[in-house]
């Protein structure tokens, strides 16, 4: 199976690889995995106000999983939490031309974004006023 040029580009030059200190209050961390293939993906966001100002990821998995998470971090940077939550895996599939057998990689990236935002919101609680 051939990877698309965009997947290869993200695989060779992944954007935003790395970690934030997950104990910091303005950082949200999501770790998700695909049991079928053992892939595991960590996606972190740094938030100011309700805007994602930076994002990092670390993925152990196939090229499509790496490309999906790399693209996800690019897309969510600068977005508000609500905007980031509205990203659908199908948009990732389309952008990277993922074949049907790799669609679960895009699902993983969408889940990772949601998990990171959920973690951030949990840290701040529903009624807690955010400080920037």
């Amino acid at each position, binding site marked *: 199976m051939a990877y698309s040029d965009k997947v290869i580009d993200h695989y060779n030059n992944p954007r935003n690889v790395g970690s934030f200190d997950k104990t910091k209050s303005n950082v949200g961390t999501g770790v998700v995995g695909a049991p079928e293939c053992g892939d595991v993906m960590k996606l972190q966001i740094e938030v100011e106000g309700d805007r994602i100002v930076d994002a990092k990821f*670390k993925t152990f998995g196939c090229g499509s999983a790496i490309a999906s998470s790399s693209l996800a971090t690019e897309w969510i940077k600068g977005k508000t939490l609500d905007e980031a939550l509205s990203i659908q895996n199908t948009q990732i599939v389309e952008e990277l031309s993922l074949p049907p057998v790799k669609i679960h990689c895009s699902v993983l990236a969408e889940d990772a974004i949601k998990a990171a935002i959920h973690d951030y919101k949990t840290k701040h609680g529903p009624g807690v006023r955010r400080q920037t």
Partner: protein
Amino acid sequence: MQRCPNCDAELESPLGCAACQRIFDPPEGLSPFELLGLPQAFALDEAHLRRRVLRLGRLVHPDFFGNAPAQERELAERNSARLNRAHELLADPVERANWFVTALGGPAENEQRSMPQAFLAEVLEWNELLEEARAAPAGSGLRERLEALASTLAAERARGLKSIAAHLAPLPERGSLLLRELRTQLNALRYVDRALSEIESLSLARASLR
């Protein structure tokens, strides 16, 4: 116990009759346990399974049907394949448990993806250590850490299997919530097994460089 339609002897398996050496075409959709004539239970005597498979394997082996009509020859081939598939499935406790969870209407592997965050964070750590080990020069002390990880994982695997076995005896009811828990535990084993096999291939690669 079914009887042989040819010689009326008791049938050990629907694949064929040990008494008159006749082979049969069992109906589709039989469980691997039914095909091998074993009780449908997770606990299984491995030596007993091996003996049963050897005996049936000889009974349905295509070599003994070399002079038989084409139809029977093909049936022997099909039955050998059925026997092999059933054996592979039953011999591995993870596959066996997986079969029960699916057969009892539990969620499939990819229908129950969510795992505790703490567990996934652990999986991430294993992978980070593996990544470090791949990049590190030999003799940098990582080997000990890898070995430690391998024995931790092996212990975790044994614990997981034990817990799965306990949940499957007696078998949970169809559609029981316990099946979701079992699927989560089986998925955890997948991550453990994957990490173990990566450690193994890494050690093999290192050994061949020496």
